[in-house]
């Protein structure tokens, strides 16, 4: 894949470049702030952009703004945003930005090289990738009035996997159940959450997460 990196910490930026190069990816640009990132993407849109949320000059959410901008202007480029904390607001903004091709990971997740590379590949394919921690925090808000409370433990597992952006086949493999069992669980989840059984993969994730994050 052709990848661009925007990260203000030199140490981490170099680390990411090396890691991705070793995996056989092509890093076409590695920059330290959002403005340079937008210039680089405009010059030569990559398959996917990895961007830190906090970057100079204000160290607030420049990376996120740039990511949303890129999604809007170059629909073929996926964005994977790395964040210091789980910020539900950021996750929601990315989710509602459009149809897949977005990812939101905790920065520390980079340490789990396999998971990071997997998320990157999914975002590049136009799917979604959300950090398990983000999903856990959103699911943790279960109350009795919350329709989530009506899900069985197994359905919750499936929903969590689904919310991270995994396909049905991947969920089946990860939970060691058959594909048809996963489909059955998903239908049950949609019923309980009052969502129409939309087909499109990322639309489904978006619908679920939007509902949970609201």
């Amino acid at each position, binding site marked *: 894949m052709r990848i661009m990196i925007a990260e*203000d*910490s030199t*140490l*981490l930026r170099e*680390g*990411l470049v*090396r*890691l991705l190069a*070793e995996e056989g990816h092509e890093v076409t640009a590695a920059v330290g702030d959002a403005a340079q990132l937008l210039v680089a993407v405009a010059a030569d849109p990559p398959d996917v952009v990895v961007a830190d949320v*906090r970057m100079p000059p204000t*160290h607030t959410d420049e990376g996120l703004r740039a990511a949303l901008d890129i999604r809007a202007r170059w629909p073929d480029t996926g964005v994977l945003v790395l964040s*210091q904390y789980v910020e539900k607001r950021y996750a929601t903004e990315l989710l509602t930005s459009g149809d897949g091709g977005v990812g939101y990971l905790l*920065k*520390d997740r*980079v*340490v*789990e*090289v*396999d998971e990071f590379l997997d998320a990157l590949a999914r975002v590049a394919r136009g799917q979604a990738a959300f950090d398990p921690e983000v999903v856990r925090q959103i699911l943790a808000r279960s109350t009795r009035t919350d329709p989530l409370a009506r899900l069985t433990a197994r359905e919750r597992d499936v929903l969590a996997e689904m919310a991270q952006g995994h396909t049905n086949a991947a969920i089946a493999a990860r939970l060691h159940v058959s594909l048809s069992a996963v489909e059955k669980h998903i239908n049950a989840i949609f019923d309980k959450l009052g969502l129409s059984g939309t087909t499109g993969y990322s639309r489904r994730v978006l619908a679920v997460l939007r509902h949970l994050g609201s």
Partner: protein
Amino acid sequence: MRTLAIRTVRHTVGCALGAATALVELPLTLLCGLALLLAGVRPGATRPVPRPVRAVAAALLGIERRRLARFFGIRIATAPDDARALRYLAVRWTLGALGGAVAVLVVLGIAYSSLFVYVWWLSAVRYPLEVALSNLAGLMLLFLACQGVLGTVALEDQLARRLLGPSPHDALERRITELATTRAEMMEAVDGERRRIERDLHDGVQQRLVALGMLLGRARRTHDPARTDALLRQAHEESRAALVELREVAWRVYPTVLDEAGLRAALETVAERTPLPVRLDWAVPVPPPRQTGTVAYFVVSEAVTNVVKHSGATRVDVSVGRSGDRLTLRIEDDGTGGADPAGGGLTGLARRVAALDGRFGVHSPAGGPTAITAELPCAS
């Protein structure tokens, strides 16, 4: 002797002028009294007093303040309102009368005490004993009149302070405002420091740990033993760097040596850790109380950090001394100057010092050198 004479003359002229202003103040007072009587209101109100009269009173007050400052060296910081101005002028004219009387006595004293000289000049001295006695009495009168001038000035001073100066209530109000401000600023400073600590942790320690994790992750993924070995060596280095970083951050949050070994040791550590030569001049016989020591430490360490970051200096002189019940700090460098007292770091320091009722100063002309001074209360 000469200065005493000059001062007496100045005071006497001031008293004489005071007598002149009293000539305006007395009718003004009578006029105001009449207006208030006619309106039948309680004392202290100014509304029934016609505006032109109030304008005259304000102008008079201005003249009086200038006279007090110029001839007696009495300066009243606050600007009183109309009611207080009128009340002052209503009493002041009595002192004006007194001042005029003593000024006349001074002139008489001078005339009598130099009697011998005139008589001797004008004609032969026929009754030397009487002239001499008159002369002596004149000298006595002059002395007493000068005492009278001094007494009048003291009365002027007291009256102005009582009626124009800040009342205890005003002083309390000012103090409360001051405390509220410093408290708010202190909170602001604390928040700023917390933000800095958070930034230090994230941009330093966490990044290093993530980089370390990435190195280990890459080491696990590769199947080339030589490569794994190289990556592990790097990871080992990185873990050391992360530990150093963590120590640095912890030190910046609070230097424990301050509690363990006191301010002097903490400042010596600052000097050792600074890349520039830092000369520490320590002249404090008794170690300051803990709170003062903490603020002093942060002032010096932040100021020295600023020097290293911005000034381009080649050396820093830090002196810590004691004058009376105050701890004095001075941090001087030979850099390019132009430090901005309104900048983030310096504002934070000024706030910390203000919260202890200390004084903080930045002297940094363009082209240098820069001197940062602080005085901290140090009651022990």
